[in-house]
């Protein structure tokens, strides 16, 4: 799939924001006043920036409100609802934290839960797609949630949890690469099933429908060089999980250490997300001979 910057930014930042909100809602960071304002501001900032980025992806963003209408079937619509609900529900919690110095569980707990549901909804936008076998598995929501929680834990200064999550994240990333690489083959979808010509024999593309590229090819067919992808995978695991984990484990607890860990984590997350898209093979590629 085309690794569009808007979707990468959207999923990464909103994940981080909602992950952090979940920790805040759970009262994991007992702050008040300006500190609370800044922290909630940061969480809201990530979440909202991510959501805004997603609208850059739209052909007609002025109609974005319509995306709320189809919650019964559409994960994107559900995500729209849960994200807004989370942001609304967390508002009293944030205000209470800023002005009253505590996080009311009435809002905080459901808010935290909704934040995670939001991340889950986001992940399901991808995980539901049978057309992209690499995404269409449990590891996708697990990964999105773990990313959100890991980032949230780091930002919340919950180093121990963060380190444990980093380990989980590293494992999940590796699992996702491993499983992802086999996903298309295991899906059973081939040029032969795509064309229905498998009964005759092996199918290959002889002439594409048009000599130039088209929307489908640009959007769905992205080929990443194997060497390139191995390098990025290493970077993703290293930066998103290993280095931040080591920092939190080894460096003394400080704002600087947390900031460094988060910064590295975010870089890793971007790399991982870029790969998440770039390496995902849409089955439509089979019609274009991309196997």
């Amino acid at each position: 799939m085309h690794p569009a910057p808007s979707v990468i930014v959207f999923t990464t930042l909103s994940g981080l924001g909602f992950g952090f909100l979940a920790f805040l809602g759970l009262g994991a960071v007992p702050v008040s006043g300006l500190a609370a304002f800044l922290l909630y501001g940061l969480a809201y900032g990530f979440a909202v920036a991510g959501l805004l980025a997603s609208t850059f992806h739209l052909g007609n963003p002025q109609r974005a409100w319509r995306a709320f209408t189809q919650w019964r079937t559409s994960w994107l619509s559900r995500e729209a609802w849960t994200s807004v609900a989370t942001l609304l529900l967390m508002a009293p919690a944030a205000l209470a934290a800023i002005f009253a110095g505590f996080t009311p569980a009435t809002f905080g707990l459901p808010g935290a839960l909704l934040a995670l549901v939001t991340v889950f909804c986001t992940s399901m936008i991808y995980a539901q797609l049978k057309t992209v076998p690499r995404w269409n598995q449990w590891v996708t929501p697990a990964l999105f949630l773990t990313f959100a929680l890991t980032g949230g834990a780091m930002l919340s200064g919950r180093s121990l949890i963060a380190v444990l999550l980093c380990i989980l994240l590293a494992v999940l990333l590796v699992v996702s690469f491993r499983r992802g690489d086999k996903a298309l083959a295991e899906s059973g979808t081939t040029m032969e099933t795509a064309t229905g010509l498998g009964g005759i024999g092996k199918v290959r593309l002889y002439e594409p429908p048009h000599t130039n590229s088209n929307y489908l090819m640009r959007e769905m067919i992205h080929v990443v060089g194997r060497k390139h992808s191995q390098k990025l995978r290493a970077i993703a695991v290293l930066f998103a999980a290993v280095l931040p984990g080591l920092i939190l484990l080894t460096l003394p607890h400080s704002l600087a250490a947390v900031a460094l860990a988060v910064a590295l984590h975010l870089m890793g997350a971007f790399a991982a997300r870029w790969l998440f898209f770039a390496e995902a093979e849409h089955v439509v590629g089979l019609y274009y001979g991309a196997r």
Partner: protein
Amino acid sequence: MTELPQSTKRKLGLVIDLDICVGCHACVTACKGWNTENYGVPLSDIDAYGDDPSGTFLNRIHSFEVQPESGGCAQTVHFPKSCLHCDDAPCVTVCPTGASYKREDDGIVLVNEDACIGCGLCAWACPYGAREMDQAAGVMKKCTLCVDRIYNDNLPEIDRVPSCVRTCPAGARHFGDLGDPGSDVSRLVAERGGFDLMPEMGTKPVNKYLPPRPKDRPAAPALEPIADVKATGVAGWLDRLLEKF
């Protein structure tokens, strides 16, 4: 709206005969022409005369070569592809805005362009590459099964068929109700072993493809000479030939 109807009264769709399609692209430009002028915004062509022209098309012809398992010569198959108007259309259920929907009456899957935000998710959800975002208008385009032709009172009745079907010179495209087992298209599918594309996707396409008939038949036995020309000479051969004449 992006819920799918429980069932549709009819299942209108296309049956495409891969044994006959010569890959002429007539259906491609007929479709482009009709849909540029009719349903929804016109189909655009970006960089139309430039170095990377890229337009919106609702129907495209791929060409494949199939190497028979049994050996022998590779066969060329021209392969038209447009929306299959799936019964379990994932492109509909993913749509956050309700712009995508499947009609209850006839099963046609459409995009209500006024409601489409151009998120592209439906194109991701379609396994067949049947949806294309129009680069100029930012809305999703797809085969409408020429819904603005097939019921159009302003057209003579015989013309109330999709543009691509009307134009196909080889007669490789058939239109009809695949929900009615007695329809011409259903009978064709039954007779010729019509199949689904990517059945494993669970989309239950309405459109069906008819397979190419077996090719490259074994050579017929050689003809029996009426005389051994070497032995009899041309004269002897001629006598044999003309004796019954």
